[in-house]
């Protein structure tokens, strides 16, 4: 059989070319920075895809795990705490820490039916924010933790200015995440998740340990979200404030997964590109352009382009699922490639 590149390979290949493209474009149109954000959200959404796409567990609090990762990374690395791990070891630690957080939330609640679980995860998202805000002697409350280290490779310390290095670091980590998720998807575990999503009762009757498989899905998703959180904190050199990881962030991740094509890795990548792109490329550039053209007036609420952002975002969601209810790149039949 001849090997033909699948959509995942094509997407990642195109993404790798963005910095080259940037060399040709004027500075104002540089894309690689926005694409970095796409990468981060893609990792987060891949984590959510394991939980919601594969195992069928609606998780509305994935951003909480991102917060756990970001704050764990912050506390482990920042100079105002004694731990002061380096970038790599702290980033590696976000995975088990995220997984542990996933187990702590998941273990007591996985017996719940779909939407009950959704509300519990949403509540967990609120709790994490509250805890991060209220335990201010530990988490610095609303101040966020900064500065956080950038990676050092080959004895050389990066700064936030090394844009291309950052771009390719995130690119490689995203590719590794894709590979890991794909490996899980095409294994015994992935099959167990699919069977639970389709018919939990039947898969139990076939001897699938549904609780355990769900817990693993939950922990995997949480670990990936925490990983994305740690990375984003390092990229910004700050954990930001707890509010940055609120319900809205979880919703964005969910929209990425569903608009892209639930249960499909390529779909999640496209979804991240479309949703984050809409959010932080198209809308940003469009409003900047409109402002530059002198369109818009502060006196009239309708004439200020910023006031339309919610509407455009919402319409985009409604239209996207209307036109493509299964997402832009829905999964092909599992296993037809084996």
């Amino acid at each position, binding site marked *: 059989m001849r090997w033909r590149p699948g959509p995942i390979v094509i997407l990642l290949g195109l993404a790798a070319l963005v910095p080259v493209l940037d060399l040709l474009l004027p500075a104002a149109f540089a894309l690689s920075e926005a694409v970095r954000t796409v990468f981060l959200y893609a990792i987060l959404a891949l984590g959510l895809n394991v939980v919601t796409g594969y195992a069928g567990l609606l998780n509305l609090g994935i951003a909480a795990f991102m917060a756990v990762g970001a704050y764990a990374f912050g506390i482990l690395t920042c*100079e*105002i*705490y*004694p731990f002061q791990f380096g970038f790599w070891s702290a980033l590696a630690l976000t995975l088990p820490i995220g997984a542990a957080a996933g187990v*702590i939330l998941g273990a*007591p609640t996985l*017996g719940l039916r779909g939407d009950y679980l959704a509300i519990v995860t949403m509540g967990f998202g609120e709790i994490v924010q509250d805890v991060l805000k209220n*335990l201010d*002697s*530990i988490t610095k409350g609303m101040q966020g933790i900064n500065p956080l280290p950038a990676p050092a490779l080959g004895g050389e310390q990066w700064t936030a200015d090394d844009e291309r290095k950052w771009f390719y670091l995130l690119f490689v980590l995203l590719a590794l995440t894709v590979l*890991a998720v794909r*490996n*899980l998807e095409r*294994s*015994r*575990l*992935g*099959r*167990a998740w*699919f*069977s639970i999503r*389709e*018919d939990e*009762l*039947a*898969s*139990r*009757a*076939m*001897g*699938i*340990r*549904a*609780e355990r498989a769900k817990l*693993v899905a939950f922990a995997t998703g949480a670990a990936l979200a925490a990983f994305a959180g740690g990375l984003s904190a390092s990229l910004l050199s700050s954990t930001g404030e707890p509010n940055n990881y609120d319900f809205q962030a979880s919703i964005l991740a969910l929209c990425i997964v569903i608009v892209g094509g639930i249960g499909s890795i390529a779909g999640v990548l496209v979804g991240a590109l479309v949703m984050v792109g809409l959010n932080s490329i198209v809308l940003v550039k469009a409003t900047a352009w409109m402002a530059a053209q002198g369109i818009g007036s502060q006196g009239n609420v309708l004439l200020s382009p910023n006031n339309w952002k919610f509407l455009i975002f919402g319409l985009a969601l409604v239209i996207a699922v209307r036109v493509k209810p299964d997402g832009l790149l829905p999964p092909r*039949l*599992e*296993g*037809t490639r*084996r």
Partner: protein
Amino acid sequence: MKAMECHGVWVQFGGLIAVQDVSFAVNPGEIFAVIGPNGAGKTTLFNAVTGIYPPTKGRVELHGDEQVEPVTPRVVATIAIVGALVGALAVGAVHIQSLWQSWIIDHYKYAQPFPWAEATAALARAIAGLGWFGGVLPLVVGGAIGGGAAWKHFSRARRASDHIARTGVARTFQNIRLFNELSLAQNVLVGMDARMRTGFVSALLRLPRFHAERRAFHAEAQELLDFVGLAGRADEAAGSLPYGLRRRLEIARALGSRPTLLLLDEPAAGMNPTEVGGLMALIRRVRDRGVTVVLIEHHMKLVMGVSDRIHVLQHGRTIAEGTPDAIRSDRRCIEAYLGSEEHG
């Protein structure tokens, strides 16, 4: 030893008694049929046997064993550990700020080396100094909640269907429950899951052992599909399969776990006479693999043709049991069931 025994099984939903004091035993290697008019409680009985819900009263033994996960020391230890962890979490949650204070804030001066030994000792002292109200109370309350939840979880899962399936009991469903979005091969592979050994890490990293196991099981899945007559369609979606063949796939999936006991819930429903003939042959071949078969069926030709013994239910009660010939001539059975079936 019997392959399966029911001792005075009752199943009750609220006020409705679906199964009432049913007892029977199935010998290893036989084909045993449970028949009865609609609403006689056959499927409910199957569900009680396979752990989808527990019998209200009575016992179901599989291979001479009740198949309830026993309360072993290991289970007790797990519950205790969960309780202790939750208790510790509760203590931590209540005191996290003061503990952090005595561990980190009191000892860390910015940009100076951290005195780990000294700080940890201070932390230990702080924990020891929590006292009854601050320390022991949350520990006990948290431990009780955690342990209680763990026990509740265990007792719910004791006789869960996944546990029973893993002891060698497989089944099919009256209203076919395939995984429609998975391929045929994958449906069978789900059935085999209980026998697989690869864990998370070897799946993630695709260690050699992952590949070896995958090859072996994929080959076996093909073989099972051949066995039920679905050769060459391994990569089709189960949802696209014609109705008559879905039953066969369900049987292949059930056989994936190499069960010793197979429960078939109305396997011939909706089949035409030719298909029924093929199914009868298949059931016999399954038995010849050494699998004990228990089936629920309305289709009399099939029941009479393949069964070694038949058990008749009406309104949740046993009315007769015996060989096909005996049942055919049993007056009560004819009145209750066969009569209406054959002449109406």
